[in-house]
């Protein structure tokens, strides 16, 4: 029954990584959002709106988390949201094939006593394994509505909506009624349930403690406090150990309850009593989950393991100790090769269009207008826009790697290499993402659990050639090394990777010596990515590339054009003067003042290098035919190497500062990059000159 209530409800969507949470979010709100397949890709909180029975629902997408006791920064985002913000209900999305493990989080969420709905996703995969789920039974055992879904296939969406409407309607009238604690109330009495009740009572009794916790976490209930405290939440422990009136009594009561538990479990008191209890509670909760799973999951007699085997079969090849790494290299090579081959097809058409506009512009009057259009706007921003297809295809393919599940495997394949740098394989994933854009790659380091790992990875990321550098490579490679263009571009990427690894190695030998603890990571099953998701993901990022071309790069193009025409065009312009003052720095590398200015402008965004060269060489047509007439091959190579290695763009540096928390890492990154770039370019140029003389 559609009722016109015109109310606004906030609903939080939460689940463990890879459970299809973001896909559900997209399906409900239609928002353009990124869907990933490796743990923790949704780094930002994202919200979207949709209409439900005349009410407006604000959906809050929270980063995937395995539990409410956070491990990494992005998991902390979810917990902090749930404990502090106001929301009307929780949708907890679970993966049917891993129901047992995922109920661990469900119980923690249920302890919050908020109206809650369980969406069991990936029923298609689950049923393909020959299993059946009794949703009514599950719903009864958890004391909350359960919807069976396959979000990818659109199954269960309508039911979810109607269940959600009902839940909100009901809880609006009597919120207290619907406490998720029901799930706990139904559990068989055990030493654990008794301890939970005892600790909850202690926490309620101590009003001082309550008010302390409530100031920081207004949404948390004493019951959640008790559960998380017993599961070993160190954050909560700080509160119990704080010095305040009555804290001694609190300590004593907590200890008394814990000791009583140990007696019931026939365990002797030990110093590590908290760790003992945390582990026992883990065992207990998983035991409860296993019991529920057993009661609700039935095996079909004619079951077929085809699906499970498919994932395992792919892993047999992809993760094989000897061929795993070569397979990875081939995948990366194909990624680049496809980007270029496909990109070229589109770019050829775009070039025809650009030339056409160019001819129109050349006929315009007055002359200065024609010039600013031809050399400033089209020669500058136009040349950057021309290369959009590469960017789109690169991001499209990267999201294929993520959504298919292969990205997580990269962590496995590269783990032993990363170990030599004191990192673990998981840190390699942000590096691969760096091929798309360094900014999201830096944001992805949040999923690393250790501060030192983060800093190391963030100093390595700028050496991963982002899609903004790709156009510069392609332009130069096409202009100078026609038939070997692909090989040259690939070597440039390779140079960047080697420089990144070298940087990591150097850091691990000098300022960041600590070894990371080692990797613990889930490898999600392979899934055929949804074209729609990949398209949305690539499009969002390409859009920002186009916007950048239309704003910053366009503005800079016009500014550069002005500077290069004032007081007179060319070698006597203001810009030429600026270039010349620092040109001595780059003389040993063979760069002229135009190339020098190109490097300077590349600091703003790497694509600008092209537009700068376009404007300053006053190219009216194709830059790639002009370049070989003004630059020698060794110098071109040195220039490319310099661009691979020198300072990341301004945006990258800004993110690097926020993510590592200190400006000094950004400063180090800039200086180290420049140093490495200069030395390498110098060597490359001179070696190339020698080779060419032979």
């Amino acid at each position, binding site marked *: 029954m559609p009722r016109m209530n015109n109310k606004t409800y906030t609903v939080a969507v939460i689940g463990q990584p890879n459970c299809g949470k973001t896909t559900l979010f997209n399906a409900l709100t239609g928002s353009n959002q990124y869907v990933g397949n490796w743990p923790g890709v949704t780094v930002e909180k994202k919200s979207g709106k949709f209409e439900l029975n005349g009410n407006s629902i604000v959906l809050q997408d929270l980063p995937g988390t395995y*539990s409410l006791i956070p491990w990494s920064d992005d998991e902390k985002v979810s917990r902090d949201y749930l404990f502090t913000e106001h929301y009307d209900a929780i949708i907890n999305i679970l993966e049917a094939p891993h129901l047992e*493990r995922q109920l661990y989080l469900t119980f923690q969420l249920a302890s919050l006593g908020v109206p809650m709905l369980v969406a069991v996703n990936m029923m298609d995969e689950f049923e393909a394994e020959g299993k059946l789920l009794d949703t009514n039974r599950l719903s009864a055992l958890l004391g909350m509505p359960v919807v069976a879904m396959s979000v990818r296939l659109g199954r269960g969406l309508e039911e979810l909506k109607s269940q959600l409407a009902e839940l909100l309607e009901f809880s609006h009238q009597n919120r207290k009624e619907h406490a998720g604690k029901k799930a706990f109330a139904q559990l068989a009495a055990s030493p654990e349930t008794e301890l939970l009740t005892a600790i909850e009572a202690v926490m309620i009794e101590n009003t001082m403690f309550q008010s302390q916790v409530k100031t920081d976490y207004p949404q948390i209930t004493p019951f959640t406090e008790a559960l998380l405290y017993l599961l070993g939440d160190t954050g909560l422990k700080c509160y119990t150990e704080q010095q305040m009136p009555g804290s001694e009594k609190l300590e004593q009561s907590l200890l008394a309850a814990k000791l009583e538990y140990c007696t019931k479990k026939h*365990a002797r008191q*030990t110093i590590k009593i908290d760790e003992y209890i945390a582990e026992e509670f*883990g065992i207990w909760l*998983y035991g409860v989950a296993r019991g529920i799973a057993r009661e609700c999951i039935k095996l079909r007699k004619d079951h077929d393991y085809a699906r499970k085997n498919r994932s395992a079969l792919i892993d047999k090849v992809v993760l094989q100790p000897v061929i795993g790494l070569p397979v990875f290299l081939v995948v990366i090579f194909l990624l680049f090769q496809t980007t270029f081959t496909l990109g070229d097809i589109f770019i050829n058409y775009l070039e025809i269009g650009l030339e056409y506009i160019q001819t129109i512009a050349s006929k315009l009057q007055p002359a200065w207008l024609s010039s600013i259009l031809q050399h400033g706007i089209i020669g500058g921003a136009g040349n950057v826009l021309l290369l959009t297809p590469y960017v789109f295809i690169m991001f499209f393919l990267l999201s294929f790697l993520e959504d298919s599940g292969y990205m997580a495997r990269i962590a496995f394949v590269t783990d032993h290499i990363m170990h030599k740098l004191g990192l673990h394989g998981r840190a390699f994933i942000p590096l691969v993402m760096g091929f798309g854009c360094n900014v999201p790659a830096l944001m992805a380091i949040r999923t690393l659990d250790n501060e030192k790992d983060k800093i190391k990875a963030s100093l390595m990321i700028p050496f991963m050639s982002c899609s903004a550098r790709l156009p510069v490579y392609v332009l130069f490679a096409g202009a100078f090394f026609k038939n070997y263009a692909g090989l040259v571009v690939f070597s440039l990427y390779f140079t960047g990777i080697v420089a990144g690894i070298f940087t990591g190695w150097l850091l691990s030998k000098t300022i960041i010596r600590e070894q990371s*603890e*080692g990797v*613990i990571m889930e490898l999600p099953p392979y899934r055929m990515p949804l074209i729609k998701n990949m398209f949305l993901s690539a499009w969002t990022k390409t859009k920002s590339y186009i916007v950048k071309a239309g704003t910053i790069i366009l503005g800079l193009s016009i500014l550069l054009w002005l500077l290069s025409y004032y007081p007179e065009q060319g070698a006597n312009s203001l810009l030429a003067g600026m270039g010349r003052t620092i040109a001595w720095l780059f003389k040993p590398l063979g760069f002229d003042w135009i190339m020098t200015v190109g490097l300077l402008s590349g600091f703003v965004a790497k694509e600008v290098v092209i537009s700068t060269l376009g404007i300053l060489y006053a190219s009216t047509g194709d830059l790639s035919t002009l370049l070989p007439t003004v630059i020698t091959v060794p110098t071109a190579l040195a220039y490319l190497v310099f661009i691979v290695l020198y300072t990341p763009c301004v945006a990258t540096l800004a993110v690097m500062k926020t993510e590592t928390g200190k400006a000094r890492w950004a400063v180090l990154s800039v200086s180290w990059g420049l140093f490495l770039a200069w030395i390498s370019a110098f060597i490359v140029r001179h070696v190339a000159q020698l080779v060419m003389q032979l």
Partner: protein
Amino acid sequence: MSNIYLLGSIPGKSYRVTEINGGHGVQKRLQDLGIVPGTELEIIQNDKRHPLLLRANGTVLMIGKGIAKKISVLENDSLEQDDTITSSEHDKGENRCHA
């Protein structure tokens, strides 16, 4: 059969976790991913260079060698008896507390 470290486990065999010795952080992370004393682990791959690859609760996990050294396991009998889990878990709890 006696306890061994997960590091020395053999691919294709299945084991039960008996003890986790890592610090608080490691124990917590393993617990979040469903690995507690009593959990059954099916080893997929265990070679010299790479992390261990195993299946637990239906998911594939990779576990670094350093961490695999901190997990004690007991090989499962070829005759699997799921019903004995609970009782053996309780025994483990006692052993740990004495240690």
